């Protein structure tokens, strides 16, 4: 893996807590206080109400594989060595989707609907990128 040469996340005031939690090995999500539903990417308000009434929760880190692709085209210099690389779309048990990568699985072993769980293995300087592998 070459997570250290990955593009850095774009930080804003809303996603800083998400990335700080990842650095501690926790996957967090904002949860709407009125509806109890989670959302991602981080935002100033809940999309369910439009109101700034939400709280951070630690997510289960588990979900199912919704879909996946395999990149053959190079878009990021820091990922050239990983080509061809898969990107997976995981539907978290809490509802939101994450676009992420797989660890411990070859692309040909991916099956839509399979259970996945988060891994924290590293990232570009100052960050840990959530990756996903088979649920234990």
């Amino acid at each position, binding site marked *: 893996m070459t997570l250290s040469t*990955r*593009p*850095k*996340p*774009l930080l804003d005031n809303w996603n800083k807590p998400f990335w700080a939690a990842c650095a501690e090995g926790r996957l967090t999500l904002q949860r709407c206080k009125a509806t109890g*539903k989670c*959302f*991602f*990417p981080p935002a100033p308000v809940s*999309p*369910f109400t439009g109101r700034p009434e939400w709280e951070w929760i630690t997510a289960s880190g588990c979900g199912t594989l*919704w*879909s*996946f*692709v*395999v*990149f*053959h*085209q190079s*878009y*990021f210099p820091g*990922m050239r060595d*990983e080509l*061809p*690389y898969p*990107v997976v*779309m995981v*539907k978290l048990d809490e*509802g*939101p*989707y994450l*676009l*992420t*990568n797989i660890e411990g699985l070859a692309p040909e072993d991916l099956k*839509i*609907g399979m259970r996945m769980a988060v891994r924290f293995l590293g*990232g*570009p300087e100052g*960050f840990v*990128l959530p990756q996903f592998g088979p649920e234990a």
Partner: protein
Amino acid sequence: MPPDTRPQSPAVHLPWPLRDKVAFVGIGTTRYGNFPETDSYGLGCEALNAALDDAGLTTAEIDGLIVNRIPSYERFAEMMGINPQFCLLTEAPGRFSGVSLALAAQAIVTGAAKTVALVYGNNGRSVRMLYGGGDSQWSPWGMTSPGAIHAMMWQRHMHDFGTKHGDLGEVSVAFRHHATLNPVAVMHGKPITLEEHATARPICEPLKLLDYCLINDGAVAWIMTSAERAKDLKRPPVLLSGYARQDCFAYGSAPADDYWYPTLSACRSVYDRAGFGRDDIQGLGIYDNFTPTVMFSLEGLGFCKQGESGEFVKGGTLRLGTGRWPTNTSGGHLSDSYMQGWGIIAECVRQLRGDCGERQIPNARAMQYICATHIAQSLILRRADA
């Protein structure tokens, strides 16, 4: 995906207040290719002059201006010597071709402008525009580019409905066939087979090279005015009979997990707005940045049931001469050029005027355009004398 209530059906205004009120009276397109000696301004001026000549108008008669993919409306208006009473620059994504069209129609009907020039210019090829890379929400995971978003959706579609990558080949091959009939298409003289589609270089699997559109330099201009004024102009007027749009921005910047099916289905109101149905339409223009959007469009607008687009397109359904639904007769984005819907709508107008030569749809009286994106849209154009 966050807000779990998705739009199902927009208000249908019957009769649609804008039905047949506005007409296309001038169309201009440049060549498409690699033209480093000019830019989007130069190309836009060329297309607008062609459209003015086509309409028999001069810039003095243009009192509304919408520009797209040209950096400054102000500079463009200055260059062309246009001082309108209605002017704006619309957003870059291709969904804004249809949005711009609707804005122009509204301006004309409400009296904000009498005659609107809409000008699209793009020099993406000569400046080596890359639709991907850069910083974004998902770049740390290597997720980027519109093509990858469609690849993600098609992978899931295959899982949900049993469609195949090969089904997309029918789309590529049909549109390439049309390019062989269009002497100015970028891929003129280069027919392809289903086998070549299947074995092309993978870009973002499951999609391969021939599932992707062609980036080029070029420009397209349309001139629109009221149906009443259009009667006195040079070319046979083409009327905007219906337009329907439904947005959904609930996808959290991830691929649409519903193939835009609810919003595209909502756009079926276009038939009620136009006042006639699918049976009265002879051909289609479908926004084909990638082959899967054609499938999503056909399913969403109800040409076939959801999941059945693979079967529907088999055997040349979209192919001129053999199929009921000749689609993107210029070659479309896949085999003519990615002019972000502007060129496809221009082709619909040309079909309705009978300007299309070898690729003419016999007796074309009405054409439907469909765009599957977060701003789902469909519009129906018809000949004024049809």
